């Protein structure tokens, strides 16, 4: 299949991966440059990124990308050489070009041209580059560099330039001999250098060196000093005294590329054109080797596909399930054949396999982990753009960007974070005047942090803005019939603020074109819950707002608490379990018709897991006590009453499959060690079911 650009299938991924790296370097670098000012090393890195990107774009024949990147490179070169100064308008244009280059990059990925016209942007970039060119020194002419060794052969002892020869006569008088006399026996050589040579001066220099190696150069035009200015040279006239034959001279000179014509002593030497005959790729492999002889760079890292990692994860998951079964089998065997030597052997092996499985799981998880910096690094640019549009001054502080998460989580987490940051800039941070009036620093601050905590990741997005107006939120929810007025009145401030997660709520007076109608919050919550995570909010009037997102370290495998309810076994994600209690039935009180229990200093509402799922009550009567598992989600905590606790187990989450579809209260299933199936409790969904009862 013919691709639009000169790019083979196997080269496409490499091209895109490197292009994306360079674009990211440029993006981050420009924002940093604007904030922190001149930094020679940073400028060099950004310049190199643009330069290399241009080179690759040129190699695949993408003219618009090449031209645009080249124009950007020139601006960066100007910054690098201090002929241009960093300014916000300059950074604006540069960032805009990056956005356009990204679109052009997508053309390569999709093998389809877009209708994008890059000319207006090119013009602006060129204007930037020329803007201060007048103050820069004339670019091409440079002072002649220090004399190199090869030139010394050209110079006579008295230091006079080569085309003038001096001889000392007996009387010490220096005679200047006519050039013709000195040239007796010299061979006249004339060379035309290709007019489209990118560095014809270098070719001229090569010719000079070649002639010097052949004999004595008594005449060379243009003179070396002119060549060393690197200005274009089209034509060389030289005279050289040598004992070499014409053949040897022409062979030496024609070894230099980009020579259009060569004349020696008036005779035009034919120039054989280099013939390039690539072997067709279907030709028989050389040396019996199917692959051509490329030995790739010995790298300290390995690139692999995400699909492979997913496969690996699945296989490890299967292994864990089998490990659980083996453990169960071992227990059974040991019970039945106590003391049998072979069983002991088997038991030991099973324990060992279990250990190895654990380690394998850890390693695979680590391979799949990426630092959250991969997500965070796009945000400085985002905050810059948003705050400019909103005409506010906002600074982004990032902490814990080295915290690692599973790839699958990283892929999904940036959308919710973008929403939260947008809201902070648009609604949280006050305009300059308001901040000053409130005695706050002119610049609003958004702090983004990430950290690990007991098998979970905690991400917070916090701003020092005006906080969420809880009363307005309540009023808005009531007005939109999302909550009854009496219920609204009864809500505590912490509960009321959670209303922002309701679909259909927006307290923005008008639609802001950056963040839309504020329909984001319910989607933010849904998306995070889909990851088995949760999001909560705290706000302080006039001081700021903090969102906290909790995510599991990995999506596929969880630690769970197994419980029995009626005839069913359920797995409750251990991360949601706060504590386990065994309480006497007599201690259960009723509040507003719902059972509760007093635990230390707070009230814990109770719910029977059986009833929550609508099972007919299978609990044996006559029991005096009941097992309660206190489960927490966000700010809500509920004590789930179960029949029996079966212990902890690490299980692999298996989706229920399309036939079952979305089942309220259940997020998946797991195969236990004894072969039974346990349903995994979807805690937020379960809480909703309980609340509705």
């Amino acid at each position, binding site marked *: 299949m013919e691709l639009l650009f000169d790019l*083979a299938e*196997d*080269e496409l991924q*490499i*091209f895109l991966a*490197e292009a994306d790296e360079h674009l990211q370097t440029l993006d981050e670098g420009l924002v940093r440059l604007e904030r922190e000012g001149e930094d020679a090393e940073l400028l060099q*890195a950004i310049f*190199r990124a643009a*330069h*290399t990107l*241009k*080179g*690759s774009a*040129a*190699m695949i*024949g993408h003219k618009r990308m*090449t031209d645009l990147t080249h124009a950007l490179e020139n601006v960066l070169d100007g910054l690098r050489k201090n002929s241009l100064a960093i300014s916000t308008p300059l950074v604006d244009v540069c960032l805009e070009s990056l956005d356009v280059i990204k679109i052009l990059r997508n053309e390569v990925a999709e093998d389809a041209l877009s209708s994008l016209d890059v000319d207006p942007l090119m013009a602006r970039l060129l204007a930037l580059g020329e803007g201060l060119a007048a103050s820069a020194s004339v670019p*091409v002419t*440079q002072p002649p*560099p220090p004399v*190199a060794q*090869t030139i010394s052969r050209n110079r006579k002892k008295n230091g006079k330039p080569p085309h003038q020869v001096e001889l000392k006569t007996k009387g010490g008088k220096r005679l200047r001999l006519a050039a013709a006399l000195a040239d007796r026996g010299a061979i006249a050589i004339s060379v035309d250098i290709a007019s489209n040579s*990118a*560095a014809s*001066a*270098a070719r001229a*220099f*090569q010719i000079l*060196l070649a002639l010097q190696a052949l004999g004595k150069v008594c005449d060379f035009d243009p003179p070396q000093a002119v*060549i*060393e200015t*690197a200005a274009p040279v089209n034509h060389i006239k030289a005279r050289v005294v040598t004992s070499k034959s014409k053949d040897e001279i022409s062979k030496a000179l024609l*070894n*230099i*590329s980009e020579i259009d014509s060569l004349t020696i002593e008036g005779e035009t030497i034919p120039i054989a054109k*280099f013939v*390039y005959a*690539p*072997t067709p790729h279907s030709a028989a492999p*050389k040396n019996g080797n199917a692959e*051509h*002889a*490329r*030995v*790739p*760079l010995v790298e300290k890292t390995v690139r692999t596909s995400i699909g492979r990692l997913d496969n690996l994860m699945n296989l490890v998951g299967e292994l864990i399930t089998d490990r659980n079964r083996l453990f169960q089998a071992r227990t059974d065997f040991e019970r039945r054949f106590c003391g049998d030597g072979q069983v002991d052997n088997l038991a030991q092996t099973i324990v060992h396999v279990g250990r190895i499985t654990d380690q394998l799981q850890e390693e695979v998880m680590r391979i799949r982990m990426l630092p959250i910096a991969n997500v965070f690094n796009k945000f400085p640019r985002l905050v810059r753009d948003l705050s400019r549009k909103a005409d506010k001054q906002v600074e982004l502080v990032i902490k814990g960007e080295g915290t690692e998460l599973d790839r699958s989580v990283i892929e999904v987490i940036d959308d919710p974070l973008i929403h939260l940051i947008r809201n902070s800039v648009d609604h949280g941070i006050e305009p300059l005047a308001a901040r000053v009036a409130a005695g706050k620093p002119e610049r609003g601050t958004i702090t983004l942090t990430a950290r690990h905590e007991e098998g979970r990741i905690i991400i917070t997005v916090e701003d020092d803005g005006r906080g969420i107006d809880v009363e307005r939120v309540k009023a808005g929810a009531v007005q939109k019939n999302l909550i009854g007025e009496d219920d609204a009145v009864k809500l505590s401030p912490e509960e009321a603020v959670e209303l922002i997660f309701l679909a259909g709520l927006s307290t923005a007076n008008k639609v802001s074109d950056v963040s839309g109608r504020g329909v984001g919050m319910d989607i933010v919550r849904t998306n995070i819950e889909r990851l088995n995570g949760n999001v909560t909010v705290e706000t302080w009037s006039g001081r700021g707002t903090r969102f906290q997102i909790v995510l599991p370290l990995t999506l596929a495998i969880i630690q769970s608490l197994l419980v029995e309810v009626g005839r069913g076994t359920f797995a409750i994600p251990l991360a949601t379990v706060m504590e386990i209690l065994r309480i006497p039935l007599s201690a259960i009180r009723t509040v507003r018709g719902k059972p509760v229990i007093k635990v230390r200093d707070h009230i814990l509402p109770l719910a029977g897991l059986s009833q929550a799922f609508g099972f007919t009550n299978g609990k044996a009567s006559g029991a005096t006590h009941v097992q309660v598992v206190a489960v927490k989600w966000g700010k809500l905590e509920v004590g789930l009453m179960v029949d029996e606790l079966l212990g902890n187990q690490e299980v692999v989450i298996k989706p229920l499959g399309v036939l079952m579809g979305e089942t309220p209260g259940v997020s998946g299933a797991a195969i236990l060690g004894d072969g039974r199936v346990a349903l995994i409790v979807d805690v937020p969904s379960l809480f909703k079911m309980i609340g509705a009862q």
Partner: protein
Amino acid sequence: MAKILIVDDAEFLRVRISKMLADGNHQVIEADNGVKAVKMYQSNRPDAVLMDITMPEMDGLTALKKICLFDPNARVVMLTALGQESVVLEAIRSGAKDFVVKPFHPERVMEAITKALA
């Protein structure tokens, strides 16, 4: 059949060039910056080097000089971009045998390598 060292920080270009060289039945080794280039030259003694100019850690011109110091007969061909005339000049002066300008065609690369190896 010669051993050729390709030095360029863009993997994409290294892949491209090595394909071109494979047609000439050459063996290819790679480095992605000047520091590694010098090390690889010393330990592998390639027959020729294709050296990019703009690279992190150490640029091509500096690497060229170090290699020529180590081996005055080194056959290095510079890979340059437009607008690097003075650097190319300096490179030729410092011992580079030839240069090819990006974006380059396979013919130009093969021509440069063939001439360098002659």
